């Protein structure tokens, strides 16, 4: 029993840091409506800066000063990010903002790698709090007790700041209606910069306080942002007390899982300690389905600025059709050039698979209007499906290539059923949660999926087991897939889907069951993503949980956004550009992530309508001139 109580106390100590990060994220979301992916990176910066400072400044005062200094420095960095980058994209579509902050994650990660190196850095212990106290006959670190106190203290301070000062009143007003606030004469740019700085400072403080507990390492950004997202969504976006309660709940549930360890239920043994990676996402999925706006949140009103309506899609004109035919024909003769460019076929297979993956994501994102942040789940289900059908069920490649997309489709039936109940940021978060759940299962179920090592030796059948044959197989399947996806958009189902995107209410009123249409769209997208995953596995001969990771999902998003969300050629252009860039950039520098991030930022700021959209606009602009010249 005492071990249980001590584990609960452990949970409380963990909750404090979690709360600090999540509170900052929630605050920033409340005012700017931007989901700041880079918040975990700010947390990581907090740990590293505190490490460097405390190594330089000796003594007790030096250590505590380092923590405060680190928080302030990170706050300053946050303000800088807001002023230089985010301020320019407040009016851009939600997705671009997410993408921009994700690019920051990449840049900051490589920045940290460059300054501090790849080694884990173990910080000092807090002077004066090195020891432990005896609680119920067990030793409990004094520093953890200190952490338990810090959480509520910060909660109280933030609460006072928000409710007892004019600044706080304005911040709360801005959370509700920024346009009205400006019509009352409040200049908001400094207000927003201030909120961003405060949020960043809380993240930095959360990181700095963590220094004596765990070594600074480069994985901290993604781990903490995942946790913080969950806490913010569970607590209710924009609610600080909600973040506090949710942090307690999540941390305690994790603590209980660790305490339970392995438990036997008759013949089954469940390892609860391994569930820690997935349990928070389960909690989030449950909360999102039962109470989509979170425990302390309120249903969000429809935004006042819903942006310009999407332009209708047009079937391909003659020239575009001929271009597509020429492109496919050009690819078909590629194997003839294998002598000169041996690498061309390998890269082309990658490009084709990426194009199918991106097109399937675009299908629900663009015409469907549902922003999926966990599309890798279906790619991965297809990939693991194919691998397992071959390895475990002994099916040949042909059968598993057909069945693997069905596996992914079944996954989409389940995930989609929950997801279509939500929209906007909440839908994105739920899909992210499902993606994480799928990933943790593949990562931790060693006996079945091979765990973190994955599986090897998944090669195509004899006839397809050479570069040229597999290239042709991929080319045919991908072209058929892309054509089918495109064809569906111009079918009555495609019209219904777009109607549901543009106005749920009006679509409902003319007899379209919007939820059902969206659910079906989810499944279709899942099937095609699964096909891409199955093709991927046979092209590589091996598989690892990497194919299910958030990074893979984000790759897909970047491809779609790069190409342009509301153009049909977009995902293909985007997939080819992205995969090719990643391929070249990754081979030419150690800091490919930063470079990639830089490229994404450049594209978001310069081509907000995507590459294909940019080309389209250019053509439209040039056309009247040509006619006028006649």
């Amino acid at each position, binding site marked *: 029993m005492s071990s249980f109580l001590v584990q609960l106390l452990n949970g409380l100590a963990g909750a404090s840091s979690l709360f600090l990060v999540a509170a900052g994220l929630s605050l920033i979301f409340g005012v700017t409506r931007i989901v700041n992916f880079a918040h975990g990176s700010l947390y990581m910066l907090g740990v590293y800066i505190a490490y460097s400072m405390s190594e330089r400044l000796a003594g007790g005062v030096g250590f505590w000063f380092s923590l405060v200094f680190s928080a302030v420095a990170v706050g300053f960095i946050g303000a800088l990010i807001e002023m230089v980058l985010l301020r320019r994209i407040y009016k851009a579509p939600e997705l671009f903002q997410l993408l921009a902050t994700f690019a920051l994650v990449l840049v900051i990660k490589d920045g940290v790698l460059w300054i501090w190196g790849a080694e884990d850095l173990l910080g000092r212990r807090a002077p004066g709090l090195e020891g432990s106290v005896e609680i119920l006959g067990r030793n409990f670190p004094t520093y953890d007790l200190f952490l338990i106190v810090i959480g509520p203290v910060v909660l109280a301070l933030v609460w006072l700041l928000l409710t007892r000062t004019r600044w706080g*009143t304005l911040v709360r007003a801005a959370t*509700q*209606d920024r*346009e*009205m606030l400006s*019509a*009352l*004469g409040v200049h908001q740019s400094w207000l927003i910069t201030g909120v961003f700085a405060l949020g960043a400072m809380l993240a930095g403080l959360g990181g700095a306080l963590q220094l004596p507990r765990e070594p600074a390492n480069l994985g901290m950004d993604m781990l903490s942002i995942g946790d913080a997202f969950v806490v913010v969504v569970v607590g209710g976006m924009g609610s600080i007390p909600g973040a506090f309660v949710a942090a307690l709940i999540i941390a305690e549930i994790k603590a209980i899982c660790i305490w339970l360890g392995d438990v036997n239920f008759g013949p089954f043994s469940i390892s609860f300690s391994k569930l820690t990676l997935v349990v928070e996402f389960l909690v989030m999925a449950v909360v999102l389905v039962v109470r989509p706006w979170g425990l302390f949140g309120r249903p969000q009103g429809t935004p006042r600025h819903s942006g310009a309506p999407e332009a209708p899609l047009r079937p391909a004109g003659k020239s575009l059709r001929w271009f597509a035919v020429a492109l496919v024909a050009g690819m078909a003769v590629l194997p003839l050039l294998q002598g000169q460019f041996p690498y061309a076929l390998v890269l082309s297979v990658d490009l084709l698979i990426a194009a199918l993956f991106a097109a399937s994501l675009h299908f629900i994102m663009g015409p469907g209007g549902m922003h999926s942040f966990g599309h890798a789940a279906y790619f991965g289900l297809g990939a693991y499906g194919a691998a397992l059908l071959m390895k475990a069920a002994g099916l040949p490649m042909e059968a598993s290539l057909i069945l693997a997309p069905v596996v992914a489709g079944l996954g989409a039936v389940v995930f989609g059923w929950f997801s279509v109940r939500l929209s906007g940021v909440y839908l994105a978060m739920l899909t992210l949660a499902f993606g994480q759940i799928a990933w943790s299962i593949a990562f931790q179920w060693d006996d079945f999926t091979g765990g973190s090592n994955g599986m090897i030796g998944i090669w195509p059948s004899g006839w397809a087991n050479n570069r040229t044959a597999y290239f042709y197989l991929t080319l045919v399947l991908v072209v058929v897939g892309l054509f089918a996806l495109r064809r569906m958009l111009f079918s009555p189902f495609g019209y219904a889907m777009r109607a549901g995107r543009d106005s749920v209410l009006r679509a409902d009123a003319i007899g379209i069951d919007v939820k059902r249409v969206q659910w079906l769209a989810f499944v279709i997208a899942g099937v095609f993503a699964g096909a891409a995953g199955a093709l991927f596995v046979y092209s590589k001969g091996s598989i690892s949980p990497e194919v299910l990771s958030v990074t893979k999902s984000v790759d897909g998003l970047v491809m779609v956004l790069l190409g342009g969300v509301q153009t049909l050629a977009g995902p293909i252009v985007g997939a080819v550009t992205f995969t090719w860039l990643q391929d070249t950039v990754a081979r030419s520098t150690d800091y490919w992530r930063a470079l990639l991030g830089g490229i994404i930022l450049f594209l978001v700021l310069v081509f907000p309508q995507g590459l294909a959209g940019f080309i389209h606009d250019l053509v439209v602009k040039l056309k009247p001139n040509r006619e006028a010249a006649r």
Partner: protein
Amino acid sequence: MIHREPPPTLLTVEGLNAWYGAAHILFDVGFEVKRGEVVALMGRNGAGKSTTFKALMGLLERRKGTVKLMGQDISGRSPSQIARMGLGFVPEDRRIFTDLTIAENLEVGRQAARRWPDDSPAPEWTPQKLYDLFPNLKEMGPDRLGGRMSGGEQQMLTVSRTLMGNPYLVLLDEPSEGVAPVIVEQMAHMILALKSQGVSILLSEQNVHFAELVSDRAYVLEKGQIRFSGTMAELAANEEVRRSYLTV
């Protein structure tokens, strides 16, 4: 040119055009409001009254034309700058901060006191003065949440919130819209009370009777263009204008 000596012009609008996206809503709208006046901008639903107010406040992205507040050009400025220069805006849908208390809503609108160009003080408002003007607000107490008020009470709060900015001129969008008849009457009293305290008001209105109760002059807007301007007496006498542009 006929020079009328005081009152001087507070707001001059010339050639105002505005768009919602690609839709052209206002066509060369022009009018003026003088110090101490209550002017009604009249017209049916969709005539462009609210659009005019939003364009004046800088809330529409795409707009063209000259807007001068006390001689200073405000046409290219941001909403917050315009509000800081002394133009107050009471939106039709009230837009109370429902999570904030009455006192906090007033605090958000607070700006420093102003002076007229001749250095005499412009009307200056405090929560206390506003509670005296609206006893209902006082009764509820400063800690009542904005979300827990009736439509009429919210209407009083939104007017008070704008007055806390001590504006030279208040844009009052459809004060009689969607509130109970008894509140409409209170609104009329309020406008007259404000006028007596030296506040100038430009209000938009569909209801001719209400406008006649409170206004000195009127402009009639139809399909984004000004079709009539004159005193209330002239409008009352002009059956043609009333029938074509105002009665439903």
